[in-house]
């Protein structure tokens, strides 16, 4: 019922003409400056590609000082391990054990890493870093090339572990 009402509201909305005539269309530079946000179906992923081997080198140069040489964590979060721990009293949530979508890894590394210099990496470097972290977790083979086509098809181990919010659930 709510869904129907909301959908009706949207239909009316888009039919409306602007009333306040504020602002202006964004410029191409502004749109470029926004960068891409990546959807789980791969929408937004740019051209380029990366291999596990290239990622290993990049990780050593750009990530290891905070995440440890093997992603074991330091100032930055631990990026490997934890499979089989989610239902235990000491869950270890990492990219490998917890994250539902590999596209999220691309999006996050691209937008926020390296922590002290976000925006430093070229798209192919982000693909490479992502390939390496996925390989560290045993999710992809050494020879899989990661790009806009292959990344959305990477099945994360905990993909089916996420459910909708059932609250109120406690009486």
């Amino acid at each position, binding site marked *: 019922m709510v869904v129907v009402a909301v959908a009706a509201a949207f239909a009316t909305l888009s039919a409306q003409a602007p009333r*306040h005539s504020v602002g202006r269309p964004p410029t191409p530079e502004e749109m470029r400056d926004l960068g891409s*946000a990546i959807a789980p179906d791969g929408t937004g992923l740019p051209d380029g590609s990366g291999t596990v081997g290239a990622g290993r080198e990049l990780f050593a140069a750009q990530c290891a000082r905070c995440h440890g040489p093997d992603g074991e964590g330091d*100032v930055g979060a631990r990026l490997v391990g934890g499979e089989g721990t*989610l239902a235990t009293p000491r869950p270890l949530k990492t990219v490998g054990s917890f994250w539902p979508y590999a596209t999220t890894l691309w999006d996050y590394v691209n*937008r926020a890493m390296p922590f002290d210099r*976000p925006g430093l990496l070229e798209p192919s470097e982000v693909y490479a870093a992502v390939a390496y972290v996925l390989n560290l977790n045993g999710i992809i083979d050494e020879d899989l090339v990661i790009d806009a086509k292959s990344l959305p098809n990477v099945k994360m181990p905990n993909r089916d572990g996420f459910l909708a919010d059932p609250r*109120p659930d*406690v*009486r």
Partner: protein
Amino acid sequence: MKHVRIRPNRRQLLQMGAAVGGSLVAGREALTLAATPRSLGEPVGPYGERSPFETSVRWRRQSQTSETGASFTPIQDSVGILTPSALHYERHHAGIPPIDPATHRVIIHGMVDRPLSLSMDDIRRLPSVTRILALECGGNSAGEWRARGGADVQRSHGLLSGSEWTGVPLSLLLAEVGVRSDASWIIAEGGDACRMMRSIPLAKAMEDSLLAYGQNGEAMRPAQGYPLRLLNPGWEGNTSVKWLRSLKVTDQPYMARDETSKYSDLMADGTTRLFTYAMEAKSVITFPSGGQTLPARGLCELTGLAWSGLGRIERVEVTTDGGRTWVDAELQEPRLPQALTRFRLPWRFDGQEARIASRAVDSTGYVQPTRQALIAVRGMNSIYHYNGIKVWQVRADGSVTNAEA
């Protein structure tokens, strides 16, 4: 930037200190001083500061880097339902960006008929609304799951603040851009170094989301998102993306790192709840609370805060006997939906040990659960959305501790 500091001189401080001291001796001294010539006070000034005797500050939790840190509001010292902007809790993931409002823009794009780039002047020209709202971090009281909530209410519940917010309804701007009928989500991005991103259902945006620029009578503080933030009433603080620079209308959530890896709720069976946005009803006694000592036996005013992301606070009950009996506390008016509500109850402390707690009921009929009831359903790994009843132990000597520790 030049700051004009208003400092009492040394002699004034001594005089005020003597007056505040309160003992009989100090009182007599103050009387004597009053007979001596008085000195002039400080002149008027451009931007006020609180009394130098007021020292309540935010507590900063230790974190791996200072830019990803959190600081907690000293709610044990707060009165009424508003938090001074300078004491509003902070939670940043990549520090506070220094944004010049003259150059800041927010871009609304994606599945819309007319993408828009708006300056702060554009935003301020639009019809505005003002609302008093509570803001609570999704991870507030996270330590309570494992009964490691900290010794005092600032540490256990201080990722909570109340402000008056002013801004433009997001629904108004969505009408301006013309949302396509097959759209269903909005991806919000901040202008901080990590470009904080969250997916917001379009239904929420149409209902009550604001693009806020004002807080407590002035421009919001840099730590709160200056010059512009998204504000989702009743929802976990992280969804109210600060330093807002982009709203992309889409037909799917983007599964951002901060809604999958973080701000999702892991259950005991290993499954995880996604998009747990709302903050359910919760309350806590702020006086007497952990770390405080009751000044004397006899009558005192027990007080605290209650709030619900889903509506208005209808009732707060208080127990002083460990849950055997409950009485209704008085609720401060106005009781606003999704805002802090202060409760008060006169209580006689007679030098006996007491276990005290509060329980909130909101306008949906939801009753704040016990910690045990929460854990029975969700386990102890959830981290987020802890809203269990908080018990304080009052000792015979009047000192108060965390009963669960």
